[in-house]
């Protein structure tokens, strides 16, 4: 197709224009804002699928803004990794915006226009981080989506304000460390372009400045992605934001920060640098602690959304464990970044579904605590069915996506030869079972105060949430199983497995012997 190279830039321009069109359309009618947001993100999703298709079968897109050659101008590079993350993020963004129509009317009736405009800016920032090929540009886009996220988290007022402020202070420290790292790198190499840096850096790997820059990147982005000791902003921010923003935060925003770290460490510093320092081994250990810590803290929570938030800490641990192990698994069949990339999609599906269901309970009856959810399984059968599917995925029951992530991670652990991590994964599966089973039990088996006999005799009226909120939940819930089967059978539908192989080949790590 002619001009497909323009699509990544067009993606951002469209999104930015839509954000401000929402303001203008808001003068005429509030209802336009949802429609504009929905249509824009739909168009963006279609464009990103075209980009993925192009990248997978033709080669990477290399776009020089304003025609300046790369070391001087800003460059947009889209390869398989970017395109994959782009599709995942726009898919969840589309479902969130679909879900948000009724929910936002219910929760923030006065701020509908501002909500959608800021949401569109959030999507702009996320897309920008994903497609850019310039480190400083990445920093700017990280700040754009972070600012939008702060505003969206605070939108409910009350206790959410403090959560947002804590996130703002910590996130700003993270961004400052990131930009300081850029300064260190620039002072040594004199370049900001990723491909150029990758070419300049090899003789400088021993340089203290370069190593310090890498450390700053890791710490700065760890704050943004809520890795274990730096996760303290996450539980409050996730539990007090509106449901779809919680879903985006947990499913996409922290994942995009992980993407930034993967991109920087494998594209800019490359594998040879990472082997010089034990930093990835250290990250794997921290991630292992995060897995256990998040699960244990999740058991202690009474609030459903807070429990899911701590569960996110543990899931980020899975992703970072996979990233940390990716170096130790070279030249073998299963390793590489495959489990990490798989889990980015899987976590987006599962957590998106779970947070949206938690939001549905709040929408319907303002129920926040797990113990309040008695007997809802018969009152809201579809919603609770989707919740159950996502929850058994989180536990890791065979055909689901959670099982696939875990089995690939276990293969990676076996290759790396560290069996303590295997124990961590199994233990965390047990803990997951404990805290999700508690919720499922409350939904289906426990009933109201009146005692079992009366409740069972009484026919329960189904009282479902509106269809527009139900559809995204059901799509995500069923995809939890369908994607699991696709991953397991390695059917090359929608290029799922070829993407993983192509990414691993790109960075020359693990598992690229199987190419369809």
């Amino acid at each position: 197709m002619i001009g497909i190279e323009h699509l990544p830039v067009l993606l951002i321009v469209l999104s930015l224009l839509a954000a401000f069109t929402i303001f203008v359309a808001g003068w005429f009618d509030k209802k336009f804002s949802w429609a504009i947001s929905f249509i824009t993100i739909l168009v963006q999703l279609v464009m990103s699928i075209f980009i993925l298709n192009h990248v997978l079968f033709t080669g990477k897109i290399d776009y020089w803004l304003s025609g300046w050659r790369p070391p001087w101008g800003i460059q947009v590079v889209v390869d398989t990794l970017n395109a994959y993350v782009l599709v995942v993020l726009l898919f969840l963004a589309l479902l969130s915006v679909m879900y948000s129509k009724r929910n936002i009317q219910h929760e923030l009736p006065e701020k509908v226009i501002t909500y959608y405009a800021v949401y569109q800016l959030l999507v702009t920032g996320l897309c920008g981080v994903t497609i850019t090929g310039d480190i400083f540009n990445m920093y700017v886009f990280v700040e754009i989506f972070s600012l939008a996220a702060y505003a969206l988290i605070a939108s409910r007022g009350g206790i959410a304000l403090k959560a947002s402020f804590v996130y703002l202070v910590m996130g700003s420290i993270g961004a400052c460390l990131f930009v300081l790292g850029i300064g260190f790198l620039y002072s040594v190499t004199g370049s900001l372009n990723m491909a150029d840096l990758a070419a300049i850096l090899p003789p400088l790997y021993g340089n203290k400045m370069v190593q310090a820059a890498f450390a700053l990147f890791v710490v700065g982005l760890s704050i943004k992605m809520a890795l274990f000791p730096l996760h303290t902003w996450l539980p409050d921010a996730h539990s007090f934001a509106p449901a779809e923003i919680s879903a985006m935060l947990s499913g996409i925003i922290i994942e995009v920060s992980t993407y930034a770290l993967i991109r920087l460490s494998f594209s800019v510093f490359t594998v040879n640098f990472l082997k010089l320092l034990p930093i990835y081994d250290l990250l794997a250990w921290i991630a292992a602690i995060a897995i256990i810590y998040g699960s244990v803290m999740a058991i202690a929570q009474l609030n459903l959304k807070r429990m899911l938030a701590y569960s996110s800490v543990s899931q980020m641990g899975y992703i970072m464990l996979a990233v940390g192990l990716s170096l130790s698994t070279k030249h073998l069949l299963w390793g590489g970044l495959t489990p990490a990339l798989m889990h980015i999609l899987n976590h987006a599906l599962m957590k998106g579904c779970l947070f949206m269901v938690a939001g549905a309970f709040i929408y319907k009856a303002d129920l926040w605590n797990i113990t309040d959810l008695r007997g809802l399984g018969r009152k809201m059968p579809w919603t609770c069915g989707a919740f159950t599917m996502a929850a058994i995925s989180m536990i890791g029951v065979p055909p689901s996506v959670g099982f696939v992530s875990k089995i690939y991670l276990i293969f990676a652990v076996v290759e790396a030869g560290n069996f303590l991590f295997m124990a961590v994964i199994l233990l965390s599966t047990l803990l997951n079972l404990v805290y999700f089973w508690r919720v499922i039990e409350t939904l289906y088996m426990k009933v109201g105060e009146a005692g079992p006999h009366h409740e069972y005799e009484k026919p329960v009226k189904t009282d479902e949430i509106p269809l527009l909120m139900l559809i995204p939940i059901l799509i995500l819930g069923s995809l939890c199983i369908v994607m699991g089967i696709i991953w397991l059978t390695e059917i090359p539908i929608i290029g799922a497995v070829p993407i993983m192989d192509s990414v691993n080949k790109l960075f020359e790590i693990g598992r690229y012997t199987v190419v369809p």
Partner: protein
Amino acid sequence: MMEWLTQEILAKYNYWIAVIIILIGFYAMIAKDNLIKKLIGLSLFQTGIFLYFISLGDVGVGWGLRSGTTYIIEAIPEGYIYINPLPTALILTAIVVSVSTLAVSLGLVIRIYEEYETIEESEIIEKERVL
């Protein structure tokens, strides 16, 4: 010793002062109880980083003999050298980011004050516990 002092401390004084400012800002962000003080600390932190970047771009650092000059097109006499304009361009963007962060956070502070009637962190935490 004297030589080391000249080369490591005196010749790189901008960097040392940038580090001092960054640490002052970081201290204010962590240790101060007042939210507006925290934000001022954040701004100091960012300005310290900007100073670091600008010092990078200022080539011809010396005792006034071989100084770099501005990059505006016409005014370069022969034999002079430019400073590096790239850090300038970066810092322009970073200043935009910093002022938007400041504006968003001040909006938050004002709404926190309306909600909790205080901007001291410890008092906010106490009121939250009561609620």
